């Protein structure tokens, strides 16, 4: 695939924090840094000195979160092994981002399996080609402070073992469509969550607020979460959905969404259907929003854990992501696996007849 298109293909035109590749990346992110609302100083100290940002209001008086946002990031959920601090310095953070951007732009070897995929860079899908908030954190997980998922509870360990055993009885990854990952099946992706976590591309969201509701449209899978704010109870406990049951409320400047009624099939980071999710959206600047979430699931982890990632304003529109309708990849994966088996069987038969 094509390296020379890097500097010329830009699907999304510029805002101040959007950038091209390479050197421009660093300049763009450095320029973006002061408005990202992140600081390496402890938050308590920060709170005393910095004047809190007050978001504009909607006509009915809610903090206005509306617009197009992206949660694109190179920061991993868990702190990488070998990194011991909670925050990078701005210079280090830019270095890490630059390195990640270059790796993302790296070209696959022609003739290899990895090369049989459209070129993300060519189609403007690399994270470095769109808006991205600078995050000084070394992991999205902020609690526990080691930046890693807490240990599994006894029940969590038992279930993980059971799930692993069940996987083995289901056969190979391409034996049947149900063995393929949820994302490949266009059922649920990490951008959808909940909680919403960035992936390699299409990390775009549109938020709208109407009286009594917040609507969060995730580009991936044209997935609209409609969150009622009227204090109604969650769905009955026997009603389980991929994205659960979500109810919202305002706590000052912050939109708080509580989600329950998840399904065992989703199993976010290995969670059970008992997982309880609390998401918090707080605007910290005109173009930045803090997204925090806390996962509580004693039947999986020994303690709750929390993560945080800045969302950055981006530009629309969000185009239709008809994933299932054009899922040639899934079809070809399965039919390819069957063709391989047929070929292997024919070869084995040939060998047998030669004996």
């Amino acid at each position, binding site marked *: 695939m094509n390296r020379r298109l890097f500097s010329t293909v830009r699907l999304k035109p510029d805002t101040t924090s959007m950038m091209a590749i390479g050197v421009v990346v660093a300049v763009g992110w450095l320029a973006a840094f002061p408005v990202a609302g992140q600081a390496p100083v402890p938050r308590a100290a920060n709170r005393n000195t910095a004047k809190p940002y007050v978001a504009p209001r*909607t*006509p*009915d008086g809610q903090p206005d979160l*509306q617009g197009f946002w992206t949660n694109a990031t190179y920061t991993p959920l868990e702190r990488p092994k070998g990194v011991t601090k909670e925050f990078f310095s701005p210079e280090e953070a830019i270095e890490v981002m630059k390195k990640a951007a270059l790796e993302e732009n790296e070209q696959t070897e022609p003739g290899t399996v990895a090369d049989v995929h459209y070129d993300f860079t060519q189609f403007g899908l690399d994270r470095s080609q769109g808006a991205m908030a600078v995050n000084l954190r070394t992991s999205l997980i902020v609690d526990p402070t080691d930046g890693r998922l807490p240990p599994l509870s006894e029940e969590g360990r038992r279930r993980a073992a059971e799930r692993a055993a069940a996987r083995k009885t289901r*056969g*190979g990854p*391409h*034996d*049947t*469509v*149900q063995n393929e990952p949820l994302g490949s*099946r*266009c*059922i*649920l992706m990490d951008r959808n969550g909940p909680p919403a976590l960035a992936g390699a591309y299409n990390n775009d969201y*549109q938020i*709208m*607020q*109407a*009286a*009594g*509701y917040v*609507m969060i*449209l995730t580009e991936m*899978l*044209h*997935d*609209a979460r*409609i969150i*009622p704010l009227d204090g*109604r109870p969650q769905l009955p406990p026997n009603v389980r*959905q*991929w*994205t659960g049951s979500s109810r919202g409320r305002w706590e000052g400047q912050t939109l708080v969404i509580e989600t329950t009624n998840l399904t065992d099939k989703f199993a976010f980071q290995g969670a059970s259907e008992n997982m309880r999710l609390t998401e918090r959206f707080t605007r910290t600047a005109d173009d930045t929003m803090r997204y925090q979430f806390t996962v509580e699931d004693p039947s999986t982890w020994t303690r709750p854990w929390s993560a945080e990632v800045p969302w950055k304003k981006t530009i629309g*529109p*969000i*185009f*239709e992501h*008809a994933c*299932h*309708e054009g899922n040639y990849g*899934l*079809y070809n994966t*399965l*039919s390819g*696996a*069957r063709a391989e*088996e047929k070929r292997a069987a024919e070869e084995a038969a040939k060998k047998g007849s030669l004996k």
Partner: protein
Amino acid sequence: MRKWLALTGVAVTLTVLPGAGQTPAYRAPRAADGKPNFNGIWQAVTEAHWDIEAHAAAPSPVLELGASHAVAGGLGIVEGGTIPYKPEALKTKQQNFTNRLKLDPEIKCYLPGVPRATYMPYPFQIIQGPKFIMMIHTFAGAVRTIYMDEHKEAPADSWMGWSNGRWEGDTLVVDTTGFNEKSWFDRAGNFHTDALHVVERITAASPNHLQYEATIEDPNVFTRPWKINVPLYRRMEKNAQIMEFRCVEFVEDLIYGHLRKQPTK
């Protein structure tokens, strides 16, 4: 000058209303920007999802489903009763009907397109703002964004099309193009090509219903533009909400089942 404007106003009102056939007196509550407030959960109550033309009851195309999924008879929603197909297109429609179990995109959980999404037997929610009006449908989680202030040509073809909206008095007028040729109008094989152009006119007719009219044009298939009319009713339950309907999971064995690894003998 003022008199002329007033007359134009009358003319517009007259052209808006005759299709709806509703009392013109109803004035909808206002949204923050002064426009009629269409926020809510709505649903068509009609048999048109089986066939938008008038039709008698008929057996289910699937033997095992017996009467539970039999076709309910209905008087249709097409103004004048029939769709003005070109002769060749009518043949295609009939073939579609014959092969509907194989060809109907609804069966495969594909995005339903427009106007089909509007009168499927499921609720949809309108989230209304001054710049965007979203229609979020139960079926397949289909989403339409209606662009109210930045009108553009469709950047590419899609299932749900590209919708530019405007207010004509108290009527929301949505002009949608940029469709692919893959969606249908109903379960009876009524179809269109990628030349489809839909203009919807939506007017509040009472606190709890909207009058929905759509003019449908596709010179590849129809001899002239034609109209459908259907009321949309508010879902009145206090706890009404759009439930998740990720039907992809329900159709995987149907679509990919033949690619399952066969047990070795």
